[in-house]
């Protein structure tokens, strides 16, 4: 396994930049996620790393060595695909052995490696079956075994869970993480599903409009998002945003009916500036001593062990996510508290608005 680094890597299709000069490094043994909505450039980035697409400009290095000009087979990539991409006429064993055979490895040398991979992926029992006889999860594991059997420099995963039912998905996710840890892989995982990225990855690169928005650990992204887009993209339901105007250095006024003001730790720009206040649904507290923001319950939605409560605050709907012990009903008047350490402020009103520190 190797480290991977991108230096100002750009991809353009007929003059339009799909990926606009991005740089980041994935350390050896690291599990890196690339997360973003469809069309954000994440798949192009992955395909450039794999060598399936030309790099328009910039440098891609494996362990410091530039590999821009190497063909996919010479880069030593292992890749897991969304639709498994197994060879249907071949048995599981032949599928796993295929990359070795393509390299002309003698049979005697091949067998133990295939066996070892099958054991790791727990597909030993189905080695002589055909792919169509397996469940989706098993197929994806076979596809991973095939990707990993020739010790690739890096494991690339392109939405490998998106075709799986919920039950299988959560468990295969655990398996992928287990395999990554077990073989010390360098993994790059592309997904549009923030929950998946957050769960699996050590660090996540968030992309939008072909540009890197932020790269960091899940905690960094969660607690210190760099702009409004990242703040809104992570979390379900998404962060609540309230249009606001600065009052003085540490106070701002919500632009809603009643115009409550709130103090923040962040240093605010000059008074009278339009900013966005942000608070995650998980951090909104209902009731309590310091609860000062008045609101009215619009809707209570049960999601199992948690309730999602929609609360109208002066004409803006906020969501909270709480345990189910709240006996709330539509129309109830409540007071809300926003813990001071969970208050976010963004300097502007669009997705690009940077967070204030």
């Amino acid at each position, binding site marked *: 396994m190797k480290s991977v680094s991108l230096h100002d890597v750009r991809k353009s299709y007929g003059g339009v930049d799909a990926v606009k000069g991005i740089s980041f490094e994935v350390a050896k043994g690291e599990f890196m996620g690339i997360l973003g909505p469809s069309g954000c450039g994440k798949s192009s980035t992955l395909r450039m790393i794999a060598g399936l697409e030309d790099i328009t400009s910039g440098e891609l290095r494996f362990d410091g060595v530039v590999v821009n000009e190497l063909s996919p087979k010479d880069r030593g990539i292992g890749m897991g695909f969304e639709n498994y991409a197994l060879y249907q006429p071949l048995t599981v064993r032949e599928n796993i052995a295929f990359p070795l055979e393509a390299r002309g490895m003698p049979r005697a040398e091949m067998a133990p490696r295939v066996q070892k991979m099958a054991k790791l992926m727990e597909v030993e029992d189905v080695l002589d079956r055909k792919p169509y006889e397996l469940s989706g999860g098993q197929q994806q594991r076979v596809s991973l075994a095939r990707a990993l059997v020739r010790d690739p420099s890096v494991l690339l995963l392109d939405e490998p869970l998106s075709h799986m039912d*919920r039950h299988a998905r959560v*468990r295969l996710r655990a398996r992928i*993480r287990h395999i990554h840890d077990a073989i010390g892989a360098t993994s790059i995982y592309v997904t549009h599903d923030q929950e998946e990225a*957050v*769960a699996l990855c050590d660090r996540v690169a968030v992309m939008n409009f072909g540009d890197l928005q932020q790269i960091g650990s899940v905690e960094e992204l969660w607690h210190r998002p760099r702009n409004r887009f990242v703040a809104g993209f992570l979390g379900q339901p998404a962060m609540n945003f309230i249009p606001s105007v600065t009052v003085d250095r540490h106070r701002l006024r919500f632009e809603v009916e009643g115009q409550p003001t709130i103090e923040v730790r962040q240093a605010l720009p000059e008074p009278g500036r339009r900013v966005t206040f942000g608070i995650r649904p998980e951090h909104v507290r209902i009731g309590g001593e310091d609860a000062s923001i008045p609101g009215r319950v619009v809707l209570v939605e049960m*999601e199992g062990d948690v309730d999602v409560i929609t609360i109208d605050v002066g004409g803006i709907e906020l969501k909270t996510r709480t345990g189910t012990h709240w006996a709330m009903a539509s129309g109830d008047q409540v007071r809300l508290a926003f813990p001071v350490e969970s208050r976010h402020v963004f300097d502007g009103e669009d997705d690009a608005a940077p967070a204030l520190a």
Partner: protein
Amino acid sequence: MDKLQLQGITKHYGRTLAVDDVSFACTRGEFFSILGASGAGKSTLLKSVAGIVQPDRGRVLIDGHDVTKRPIQDRNVAMAFENYSLYPQMKVYENIAFPLRAPTRPRRLSPTEERAKVTHVATILGIEPYLDRLPGQLSGGQRQRVSLARAMVREPNVFLLDEPLAHLDAKLKFQTRTRLKQLAVEIGATTLYVTHDFREALSLSDRILILRQGRIEQIGTPKEIYHAPATDFVAALVGDPPMNLIDGRVARAGDRLRFEVEDAPVPIVIDLPENAAIDRIGGEGTVRLGCRPGDLRIAPDDRGAIRLPIYAIEHSAEASLLSFSLGHDRIIQAQVPGRIDARAGEPVPIGFAADRLFLFRKSFELGEV
């Protein structure tokens, strides 16, 4: 009186049995969901209410009148299709207004009234900016909301909604879900809602019907479905992360019941409380134990705790998800709040909350993952 009744609906497609003797009733203003996997027969039920599908047997009653043989136009229902089914040559406004202009409407609206209605529903669903576009110029999510708006613009007997949020991205799904519920409450609509997403069903519904291969598996309120699943199938379908289901044997040990997992890497023996519904599963023998990941504890001082090495750790922002392998393709998971300080491979004690365990008769093979 029940607004909508289905009595013994049965439907075959060729030799395939799509719906098998399904009966239920919705009261006026009720939000009733049909939850199930694809191919379970959900849409067939919806379409037999609309009249698009003619059931082989059974009756559909609206306001107590048998409408089974009545033509589609005369049932006064509104429906949103999963694949939108917008009129491609009409602008969004015309699409939404189309049902209001039908010759079967009792009274023709004035242009002002019509515009007010269309704009109202479009605003609630957030598609007002696109009223002058053609469907072809919209994204899938926008089209889906137009289709929803077209169904919700009038006041029919029953709303039939077929996966109306399926093609929205996660953010929009959340937002539209709330709007949809508000709209349904506002117009006091009787709604029959088809979905495969348990979150939608739980959050929107007054009651939920769980359909499995054309048969009713359970009908109940969201709380009943979540806290008292009738079968292992329901248990697996509802909840996130999905409920752990462990197959094993249950036997009496003195005055207690013990549950034991065969050929696990370490002995797994769980004492069951007295109230475990042993009768329901037909006494001793092979059973399926259910336990939600959130109800497993990492509890060093728990007497019944089982020590297992961590198979994998995943973190979300506010919780950690620990997986444990029981061998033979079996994985169980525990969700604990906060960020747990442990490494993969490290053995930890796992405690089962005895009062949050479910016992089921095994009704399907767990998918190998």
